[in-house]
Every structure is written in structure tokens, then in C-alpha cells.
């Protein structure tokens, strides 16, 4: 039967609520930010933004701010009256009734960068910011924040957070302006409709740029690959994130990158390239239970001296490094937790590594032994409690000076 009659809904795909107020189609000329804001019944509803490089704000309820002088960095806010907002009454999954309004902010970045801090704290309120769907159709042909025609934003740099935000759409990548806590605590973020180089120019400022994203997402949140040499000093990237899929991570310049993505669950990462990193212990280390990582691509960190705990408790099946010839501490790569590894490749490793209680068959163990370098003195590889423990060829490793525990 043709599938034109039955099309299954992909549970990983985000679907925009059709009853939310519509965002105008792109006419190719816009230099605006559009945001759908939820106005809840029986709540003090106040939208607040710290902006610069904008000229006008239409709050969607008849209130406006016009003639804003750039580049002043100013907090603008608007208090909504639920009773006067038109449109259907919707019920949020949290249980509250709400209506939606469309906020339009006109950018003026012909001389300066436009900036939007979407969770700025308004007077007398620290409650959450109720953005649902935000579209940046802002001119971003430049990614140099000191130049015209560039822009940036943050949803987690203030004190309120945007826990209901489900989608961010952007026409251009954001600039090299500090992306401090840019998406922190966007728990419901489920869709990034952004260019492939969206995060390639950001600078750190402070950490936690993607902390807790997707923790309450309604779909699988897919990040583009990140090729960025500006993130020197990044300490934590996506702590506590969930249901996320990251593309390749190519982060030159990072040296001590301990705890890139700790506490994460149910996620996937592409190839990880850290050419300058020396200490990557706890890189993906989970803590509360096992980190249900679906997969991490090839880890290319040829200057790494420490990889202990880098995959602490990670329940992934395939582990491959490109070159570990400089590694001096590796033994607790998987921490104290039993893993689920079916394939392990550690080229040129010369120091002890404990791979017990994994899922390596004899062929996989032999392949691992083949990838090892010559042991640097008295070094041990432990493959006990694996399916192939009893039948692997231990001489592949012992011939290179290793002690093998089966």
C-alpha cells in the first residue's frame, strides 16, 4: 500500500503547535526578530529583553517601543493582560491556559551589531521568560561583532531562563560575540533551524553554553557540527543536556577541556577533534547513573596526556581514538562502571587501560591489542569479563610487552 495514505509521525521530529500565532513568511527583506510569547492565565506576564542595535519593538498587544537609539544596551519590557489578548486559549503541557502574541523587533545593525538577550530580568519579576518560538531574520552577513550587519543572542545569560522555548530559527550564523550561557536551561528546546555554521564563530565569555538544553524537549534536538577555534578556555559545554544530537566537534585551541559534556543522557556526538587538548579526563563523564550515549565518533586528540574517566559510565558500543601515543594516564577511561563497548581502538597507547566488563568478543579484543603500541614498562590491559576474554589471542599484546588480564 502506498505510504501516501499513511504517514507515521516521527517522534524525533518537532511539530510546531498550529494554534500558535503565525510568524510572517520570509520576504527576503526582513531585518527582524520574531518571537512567539506565551501569556498565561492568572500569571504576571512580562516579556523582557536587553537589546542593542535595534530600532523598534512591537510587543504584539498594541504596545510598541519606537525610535530606540543604537547602540544603547537597554532593558525593554512589556506587561501583558491575558484578558485582552485575542486568539485561542491553549493548554500548555504544564497545565496552564495561555494565549500567544507575536513580538517583532526591528534590527538596526547598519552601524553596529544587533544583540538580543531574551531572558533579561524585568523590574519586580524573576519568573521564567515564556518565549515559545523565536525566529532571527536579522542581517548577519558579517560574523564580526565589531562590525555592522552582525548579530548575536542569548537565552540563558540572564536570570530568568527560557524553559518553554521550543524552537530557534536563524537565517544567518551568530557573530563572535560572547555566547555566555547562550542556550542555558532551554529545557524544552526541540528544534534548531539554523545554518550549518551557526556556532562556528561564537566566543566563550563563560561556560555552560548549552547546559540543560533538551532536558524536557518534545523531540530530538539536533545541533549542527561546530568548527570553532574561539572556544579557548571552554570548560563545560552541554552539561545535563538530553535527547541531543551533536554533529562533529572540531575545537582547536582547547587545551584543558575537562568535562565537556558531563551528566548528559540519551545523546549522540559526531567525530570529536581536539588537536591541542592535553587533558580530556571526564570529557564525557556521566555521574548520575550511566550516561546513555548512543555513540561518539572518532576521538582525535593526539596530544592528550590524560583520558582517564573520559567515558566514565558511558554506555556506548564503539570507542575509537586516532592516536594516543602521548597519553600517560588512561587506566580508568570508563571509570568504575561496567561498559557496553563492542569495539575499542586505541592506536599507539603505551600505558595501562582497564576494559573489563565490556562486550568485546575475541575478534574485537584482538583488534584492540593490534592497535596498541609497545608497553611503556610494566603496563596492563584488562579484558576480563568480556565475551572474548577466554578465546582472544593474548600473544598479540604480550609480544609488545603488555601484561594481559583475562
Amino acid at each position, binding site marked *: 500500500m502506498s505510504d501516501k495514505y499513511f504517514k507515521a509521525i516521527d517522534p524525533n521530529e518537532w511539530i510546531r503547535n498550529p494554534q500558535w500565532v503565525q510568524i510572517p513568511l520570509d520576504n527576503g527583506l526582513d531585518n527582524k526578530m520574531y518571537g512567539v510569547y506565551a501569556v498565561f492565565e492568572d500569571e504576571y506576564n512580562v516579556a523582557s529583553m536587553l537589546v542593542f542595535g535595534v530600532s523598534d519593538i512591537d510587543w504584539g498587544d498594541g504596545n510598541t517601543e519606537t525610535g530606540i537609539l543604537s547602540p544603547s544596551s537597554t532593558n525593554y519590557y512589556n506587561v501583558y493582560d491575558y484578558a485582552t489578548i485575542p486568539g485561542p486559549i491553549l493548554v500548555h503541557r504544564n497545565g496552564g491556559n495561555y494565549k500567544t502574541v507575536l513580538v517583532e523587533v526591528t534590527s538596526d545593525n547598519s552601524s553596529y551589531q544587533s544583540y538580543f538577550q531574551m531572558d533579561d530580568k524585568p523590574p519586580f519579576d524573576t519568573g521564567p521568560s515564556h518565549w515559545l518560538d523565536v525566529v532571527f531574520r536579522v542581517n548577519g552577513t558579517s560574523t564580526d561583532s565589531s562590525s555592522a550587519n552582525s548579530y548575536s543572542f542569548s537565552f540563558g545569560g540572564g536570570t530568568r531562563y527560557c524553559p518553554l522555548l521550543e524552537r530557534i530559527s536563524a537565517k544567518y550564523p551568530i557573530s563572535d560575540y560572547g555566547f555566555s550561557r547562550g542556550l542555558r536551561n532551554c529545557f524544552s528546546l526541540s528544534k534548531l533551524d539554523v545554518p550549518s555554521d551557526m556556532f562556528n564563530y561564537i566566543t566563550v565569555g563563560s561556560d555552560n553554553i548549552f547546559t540543560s538544553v533538551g532536558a524536557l524537549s518534545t523531540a530530538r534536538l539536533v545541533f549542527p557540527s561546530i568548527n570553532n577555534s574561539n572556544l579557548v578556555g571552554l570548560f563545560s559545554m552541554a552539561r545535563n543536556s538530553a535527547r541531543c544530537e551533536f554533529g562533529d566537534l572540531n575545537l582547536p585551541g582547547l587545551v584543558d577541556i575537562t568535562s565537556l559534556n*558531563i551528566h548528559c543522557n540519551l545523546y549522540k556526538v559526531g567525530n570529536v577533534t581536539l588537536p591541542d587538548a592535553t587533558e580530556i579526563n571526564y570529557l564525557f563523564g556521566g555521574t548520575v547513573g550511566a550516561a546513555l550515549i548512543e555513540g561518539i565518533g572518532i576521538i582525535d586528540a593526539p596530544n592528550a596526556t590524560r583520558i582517564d574517566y573520559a567515558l566514565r559510565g558511558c554506555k556506548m558500543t564503539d570507542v575509537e581514538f586516532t592516536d594516543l601515543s602521548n597519553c600517560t594516564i588512561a587506566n580508568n577511561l570508563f571509570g568504575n562502571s561496567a561498559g557496553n563497548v563492542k569495539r575499542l581502538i586505541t592506536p599507539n597507547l603505551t600505558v595501562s587501560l582497564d576494559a573489563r566488563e565490556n562486550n568485546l568478543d575475541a575478534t574485537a579484543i584482538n583488534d584492540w591489542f593490534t592497535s596498541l603500541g609497545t608497553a611503556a614498562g*610494566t603496563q596492563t590491559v584488562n579484558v576480563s569479563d568480556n565475551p572474548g576474554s577466554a578465546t582472544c589471542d593474548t600473544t598479540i599484546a*604480550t609480544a609488545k610487552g603488555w601484561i594481559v588480564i583475562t
Partner: protein
Amino acid sequence: MWYRFVEETNEWNKGMNIHLPNDILLNSDNKDEMIDGWKWYDEPPQDFLDWVEARELEDMKMMLKLDKDIE
């Protein structure tokens, strides 16, 4: 089970079957021997248990430090 403490790295190794580079296999058949620092214990030695506990504590401290540093 065979146990060995490696002073250089301050780590314990343990296992039922130990394949040494010189083709010697340590298993339950030769548990009365002591070879290259390996020694058989029917129950884990206290020093080993103390080391495991200390390592777990160190790991916990590290996680707390990481959490604190990024708050």
C-alpha cells in the same frame, strides 16, 4: 584472585588469569607462587579495598569540583 600493587602509578591490578610478556600464565594452578609482584589472595587484601575506596572518593570529589566550577 591475583593482585599486584604498582608503586609507580599507585594502582592495583587484579585478575584471575594473568598473561605475562615472558609467556608465563598466572592462574589458580600456580597460586602459591609470587611472580613479578603478583600475589594470590582468596579474599581481597585490605590495602586493595582501601585503595578502591580512596579512588571512589577521589572520583566523587572530582565530580563535585566540576559541578561547583561550572555553576
